[in-house]
């Protein structure tokens, strides 16, 4: 506090004294104000320190690896999870580039793409890295790297959040291998059931009565369903283990394969008196894998016949040439359609729309997923337009015969 000033000082007039008093008073007020603001500032700073400590604590103890580097990629922070996961301590890591520690094991192009994304485009890079711990052990990390920018858009630093997914990947791979193995093993007994029921159904000796034949027919239908499921599971395990479909391309008429598919579905088409309209030009040749395209068309046509009410139309057509060497083939039905909120999920594995599930409880939700993968393996694409209770048009593009 400023010193008190006496009211009477020898040799100074009262007027002068009053003036000096005023100066001092105003000085005192200013100092008091300054003191208060400093005190407030101090509290503020203390609060900020507490906040910062909380953040630091949160980042320190997060279960994912968090690494912060400067704009050149030099590390200035790693959290505890990173220390534990990679085996490198905070002090060992700071000042180094991740490629001198756990990184640097991916192809050059991969890092180039990463730098381009975070440094040039200043977008988030999402990727997967094969890294190596300090003890030499390999691990797979799912990584998100984002750039933190200042108010002028310049890079301040990069924050990388990594998760060790080695174990998850192992389990995933084991699951796929198991599905593959089990499906192969199932095929032999399924073949036995198929062949022996076929022999019995032929009933050359007429010694089975109608009811017995009907039971046999049921065995055959169940058997066919199981075979289809096993085939679909094998396709999925092929896709999931990253083995691309081996596509054996030949030239063939779309109508040849379509006729086979229509014959396959003839009993349902007849029972429901569906009107099948084939608008595919007879000379339309495509350059594709016959068996796989048959599988795709079989899926689309059997869905269309299944979900279209009696006496309605199913129209199969083609846009012969899209100018890029592809033809677009479509299957249009007047069926139940796909509810709008569920349309975005239609190509998901195991997904089935609610209305389809009610009408046809036995589907697997694998057919369309596989069909689209097959078309993509040909370099084409598959899509649809649908309106509930009106119908759906499925289309796909596929290479035409090159002359």
């Amino acid at each position, binding site marked *: 506090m400023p010193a008190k000033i006496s009211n009477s000082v020898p040799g100074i007039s009262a007027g002068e004294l009053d003036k000096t008093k005023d100066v001092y008073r105003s000085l005192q007020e200013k100092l008091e104000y300054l003191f208060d603001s400093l005190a407030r500032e101090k509290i503020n700073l203390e609060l900020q320190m507490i906040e910062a400590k909380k953040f630091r604590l949160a980042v320190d103890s997060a279960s994912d690896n968090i690494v912060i580097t400067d704009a050149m990629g030099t590390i200035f922070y790693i959290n505890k999870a990173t220390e534990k996961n990679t085996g490198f301590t905070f002090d060992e890591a700071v000042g180094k580039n991740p490629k001198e520690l756990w990184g640097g094991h991916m192809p050059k192009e991969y890092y180039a793409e990463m730098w381009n994304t975070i440094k040039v485009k200043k977008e988030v890079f999402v990727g997967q890295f094969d890294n190596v711990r300090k003890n030499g052990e390999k691990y797979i990390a799912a990584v998100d790297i984002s750039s933190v920018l200042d108010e002028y858009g310049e890079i301040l630093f990069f924050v990388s959040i990594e998760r060790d997914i080695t174990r998850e990947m192992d389990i995933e791979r084991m699951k796929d291998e198991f599905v593959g193995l089990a499906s192969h093993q199932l095929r032999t007994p399924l*073949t036995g059931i198929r062949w022996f029921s076929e022999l019995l159904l032929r009933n050359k000796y007429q010694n089975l009565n109608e009811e017995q034949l009907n039971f046999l027919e049921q065995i055959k239908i169940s058997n066919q369903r199981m*075979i289809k499921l096993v*085939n679909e599971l094998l396709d999925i395990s092929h896709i999931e283990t990253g083995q691309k479909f081996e596509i054996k391309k030949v030239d063939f008429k779309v109508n040849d394969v379509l006729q086979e598919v229509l014959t396959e579905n003839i009993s349902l088409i007849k029972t429901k008196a569906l009107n099948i309209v084939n608008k595919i030009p007879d000379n339309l040749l495509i350059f594709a894998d016959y068996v796989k395209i048959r599988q795709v068309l079989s899926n689309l046509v059997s869905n269309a016949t299944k979900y279209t009410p009696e006496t309605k139309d199913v129209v199969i057509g083609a846009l012969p040439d899209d100018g890029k060497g592809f033809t677009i083939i479509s299957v249009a039905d007047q069926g139940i359609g796909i509810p709008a909120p569920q349309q975005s999920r239609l190509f998901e594995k195991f997904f089935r729309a609610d209305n389809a599930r009610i009408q046809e409880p036995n589907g697997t939700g694998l057919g369309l997923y596989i069909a689209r993968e097959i078309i993509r393996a040909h370099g084409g694409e598959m899509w649809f337009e649908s309106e509930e209770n009106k119908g759906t048009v499925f289309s796909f593009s596929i290479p035409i015969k090159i002359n």
Partner: protein
Amino acid sequence: MRKKILIVEDDVLLVKAISYEFEQENFEVFTAGNGEDGLAMAEQHLPDLILADINMPKMDGLAMLKALRATEWGKDMLVIMLTNYSDEQRVLEALSQKAFYYLVKSDWDLSQIVAKVKEKIGQ
């Protein structure tokens, strides 16, 4: 002359069904349970066509096919590979050894297999 078919397959039940079918269709049927026996039977009977499984004990179908192609009498013999695999690598290997066809057993009716064989060698 009845056409001669050799079936090389290790699953006894499947052999029973398929040989029954071919006998009904008036083929002369020989069977073997592995590639080694299959090769011996092929040399002894010189069949018009061989249906061979891939996955078998002792000698598998692909090894049998390779050995067959190395002989004078078997180098042009007609072979259809029967398989449980849609494993592309094995299929391509079989086709490169001049197996003219392969089929996944569970996807085919017996009558369709017979039709395929008749299409190739008549009756």
